[in-house]
């Protein structure tokens, strides 16, 4: 467990350092994610400790997000002035994205079994 925690923290620091050095367009944490996937590919399976950390921590991910969300107090004026824009993005854009992804996926998934009646 501690070894996996150390790996996770080291990947985070190394990812940030690498992204900064290369002036990469992707965040350091994504470099860390890709490195961890690479590690699993080399192992041929997920590292048990990392999987256990993920499974234990996943239910608490929303909690970690609260302090950032409280930052909205600094932007209440923007929210108040542009609420129609927010509403349109949350309702309209989300519905559009769901439909686009769903339609495309259903169409493409059904292609291999072309003989099946739809």
């Amino acid at each position: 467990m501690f070894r996996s925690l150390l790996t996770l923290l080291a990947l985070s620091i190394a990812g940030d350092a690498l992204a900064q050095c290369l002036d990469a367009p992707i965040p350091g944490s994504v470099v860390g994610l890709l490195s961890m996937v690479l590690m699993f590919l080399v192992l041929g399976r997920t590292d048990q400790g990392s999987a256990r950390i993920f499974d234990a921590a996943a239910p608490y991910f929303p909690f970690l997000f609260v302090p950032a969300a409280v930052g909205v107090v600094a932007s209440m004026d923007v929210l108040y002035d542009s609420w129609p824009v927010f509403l349109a993005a949350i309702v309209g854009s989300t519905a559009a994205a769901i439909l686009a992804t769903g339609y495309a996926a259903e169409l493409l998934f059904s292609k291999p079994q072309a003989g099946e009646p739809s």
Partner: protein
Amino acid sequence: MIEEASLFHQHPFFGVTATVAAYASAVLLWRRLGTPALLHPVLVATSGLALLLVALGMRYEDYSGQTLLLTEALSLVIILLAVPLYRQAKLLREVGYPIIVALGLGSLVALTTALSLPLLLGTSRELLASLAPKSATAAVAVEVAERLGGTAGLTAIVVISTGLFGAVFGPAILRAAGIKDERAIGLALGAASHAIGTARALGISEACGAFASLGMILNSLLTIVLAPLALSLIATP
């Protein structure tokens, strides 16, 4: 009295204590009321903490300083997404091409539709950057928004609301559109409403949840690439 209060909220543990207390109460309330979407614990805890800061006259900078480690841990959350990504990788080997094409399209639609109205109304770059990553998973969205000049707080509220809307109305929208393939439903819910949509998809079936999980992660990765591109195309600061 004022001095006592200021000492009290200057304690290095104050921010984390208040956050834990607010979130725990919000979860309790949410469960007691039968888990209504509008009262999602993150929204309730956030409102409660915002009111608390105002009541105490505490600056957000001080609170965010005390809770910095929690926020920084979001980058560990992103790295840990390697676990579900690797677990669902076999789906990519089986039906990789349809998944990538559908997600690419969905990601583009999410971006363009989210940005079109604010563009027409001529809103600020800050607002555009905060809206662009709205379908990505929270940790990624905040990271992307901040890099593009958006505001973490606004992005957070938009991302949570997007997740809730998709999770609550998504299945009905897909049903009305005649989409029945559970893999397509999962992919759409995960791609458009990230972790909250994925939780909803897991309630439909295990396969639906697996596709949602994959949709969430891959769409988040796509957002990292597409959001800066879209903003650099439309915004000339």
